[in-house]
């Protein structure tokens, strides 16, 4: 097996700069905080700007109106979405994109991808954010991310994947303010797409998990950078608090974990992009590690800010809530390690 490419290219860095600038402008901490308490917690103006930039359709082929790039580029966007905890339906639509790409021989699937690429519709995969459960089509699926802005749903039911227009969507009070979840109830109607629903969901979970890992790296980096900047300028005992070794060592350890997490996340995106035979291992490694690192980074961020870190006003809590919800999303770290155990022959 030759080494994966774990460097980002100039093109990828240019994409990053574009998305980062946009998010810094349209989704700064005040804007996000204001948004999450409003009646429309997701920022669809921002989403449309991302659509126009091409940042939401990177893995969709050009023949279907997408950018014809791939999962490495999508991972760059995911990381920036995480860094800004941007309230946009990125994850829900990433999961749907991957499932539809898997079934892209089906003309309805092609049509759905086209309308996603153009921004005409937002398609969301109707699974609980914590991971899929199968059942009949007519049922309520709890805790679906981004469902409140979906115009269509992909519903796994009876072994197939169904494209559904009509559903009743109930907001719930969510732990993660910037990626709230909804309960969605489906009636017994929709188009069953040709092909195996199970394997479509499986590939959605693989791609979604890899993108989530990139997002977690973005979250962790924001938390580290913000904490370092604060500790440089916060004085106690006549010194910057950041000059105390007990804190410096904690931050050095966190930085070291992020170095590893970044390599693992890049590897997962690269494995997906190159359809590597190693993709499952790469994703399990990335998802179990990056989840843990992002939560630790957010917890350190709150603690090392002291009282201000406990306030609603400071954005640290948005990152803590996103990081903790991301840890549960698409399988906990322990679940990914259990997957890994069988993949690499380390039975329990």
């Amino acid at each position: 097996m030759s080494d994966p490419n774990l460097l980002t290219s100039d093109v990828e860095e240019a994409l990053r700069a574009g998305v980062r600038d946009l998010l810094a402008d349209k989704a700064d901490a005040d804007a996000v905080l204001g948004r999450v308490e409003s009646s429309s917690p997701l920022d669809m103006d921002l989403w449309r700007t991302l659509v126009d930039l091409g940042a939401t359709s990177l893995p969709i082929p050009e023949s279907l109106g997408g950018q014809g790039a791939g999962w490495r580029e999508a991972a760059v966007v995911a990381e920036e979405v995480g860094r800004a905890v941007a309230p946009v339906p990125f994850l829900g639509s990433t999961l749907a994109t991957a499932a539809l790409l898997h079934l892209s021989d089906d003309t309805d699937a092609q049509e759905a991808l086209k309308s996603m690429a153009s921004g005409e519709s937002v398609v969301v995969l109707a699974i609980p954010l914590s991971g899929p459960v199968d059942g009949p089509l007519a049922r309520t699926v709890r805790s679906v991310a981004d469902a409140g802005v979906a115009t269509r749903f992909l519903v796994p039911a009876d072994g197939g994947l169904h494209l559904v227009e009509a559903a009743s969507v109930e907001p719930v009070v969510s732990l993660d303010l910037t990626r709230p979840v909804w309960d969605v109830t489906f009636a017994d109607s929709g188009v069953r797409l040709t092909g195996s629903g199970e394997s479509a969901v499986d590939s959605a979970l693989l791609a979604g998990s890899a993108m989530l890992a990139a997002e977690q790296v973005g979250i962790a980096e924001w938390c580290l950078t913000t904490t370092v900047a604060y500790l440089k300028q916060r004085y106690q005992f006549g010194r910057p608090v950041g000059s105390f070794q007990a804190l410096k060592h904690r931050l050095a350890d966190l930085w070291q974990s992020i170095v590893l997490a970044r390599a693992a996340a890049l590897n997962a995106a690269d494995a997906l992009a190159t359809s590597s035979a190693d993709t499952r291992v790469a994703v399990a490694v990335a998802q179990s590690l990056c989840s843990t690192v992002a939560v630790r980074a957010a917890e350190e961020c709150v603690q090392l800010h002291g009282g201000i870190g406990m306030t609603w006003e400071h954005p640290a809590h948005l990152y803590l809530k996103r990081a903790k919800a991301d840890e549960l999303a698409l399988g906990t770290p322990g679940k990914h390690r259990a997957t890994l155990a069988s993949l690499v022959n380390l039975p329990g």
Partner: protein
Amino acid sequence: MTDVRERVAALLAEHDPATTDRLDFLRARFDAGLAWVHFPEGLGGLGLPRAQQEIVEAELAAAGAPDNDPRRIGIGLGMAAPTILAFGSEELKKRLLRPLWTGEEVWCQLFSEPGAGSDLAALGTRARRDGDDWLVTGQKVWTSSAHTARWAILVTRTDPDVPKHAGMTYFVCDMTDPGVEVRPLRQITGEAEFNEVFLTDVRIPDAHRLGEVGDGWRVAQTTLMNERVAIGGRSTPREGGMIGVVSDTWRANPDRRTPEAHDRLLKLWVEAEALRLAGIRLRQQLANGAPGPEGSAMKLAFARLAQELSGLELEITEDGLRYDDWTLRRPDMVDFTGRDAGYRYLRAKGNSIEGGTSEILRNIIAERVLGLPSEPRVDKDVAWKDLPK
């Protein structure tokens, strides 16, 4: 651009590994510029990007060519060579690099002293000018491979009257000089991998100086940076090194498995894999001419993983209560994963001390990578001779 594959093919055509003497082959490889392709021509390299080395290694390994047994000569390869390349005269480079690389001459590192470990700049081994030579007197300690070394990289104090970082000078030292005395120091493993070294009026020609008089600290930094990259940037296959040994132990001992140990193993497996990937990324960054500060992260993570893994191994192995052999030996190589589980557990304790302790690495990361302020210091503006010792 030079095609390294052609070069390798030409080397193999002229020197069939099956019939060529090992040392002759290594010398020929060095002369063909295939020792370290990023070194200059004439010094074992071809002035090519570092990444091309992996092609050379793969092709030569496939052809069954002998290697230079890097475990025996790690200090020469990882630390002495890059320092000599950066600061040595042309004559020194020509004289020293070839036998260093082939392993004909082993190197050791005379840095640490009883009074100067983490605070290397506190060292007191004195070098005094004597005509075209220097006379060096002092004591070094924890010197790995001193008993097999032909040469040493050595940092000395040449001016005690200025602050400690300013008065140091760096040399290469001939370990066969009559003033050099090497005594074994036994380690917790029972072995004596390191030594104490007494230097008494050791005569070193000025031509063996690396860098300017008084500039030894800067030269030593080059050595230390390379040391951390050498440990951190090392390329391993998946499940290479300690994680491979422990995973195999796990597979071989179903009776000793517990859910708690299983989860620890998997967490460590994930981290070991991520560390391996970060190493690949680091090498890719180096090849593109942009070394990241990740080197110190590698060393820090490497030490912690080696210690946790080897600790876990004792719990899951059949004979965790036994040890293979406490006999005092003076090994001629450093092998972190060699011998048995007890040895690995004990040897790994050194990983967070040698080459800069984990505490010092965290200081370096916090201050040089994250830019956090340094602790208040009492030793910056005081002449070395006036420092409390």
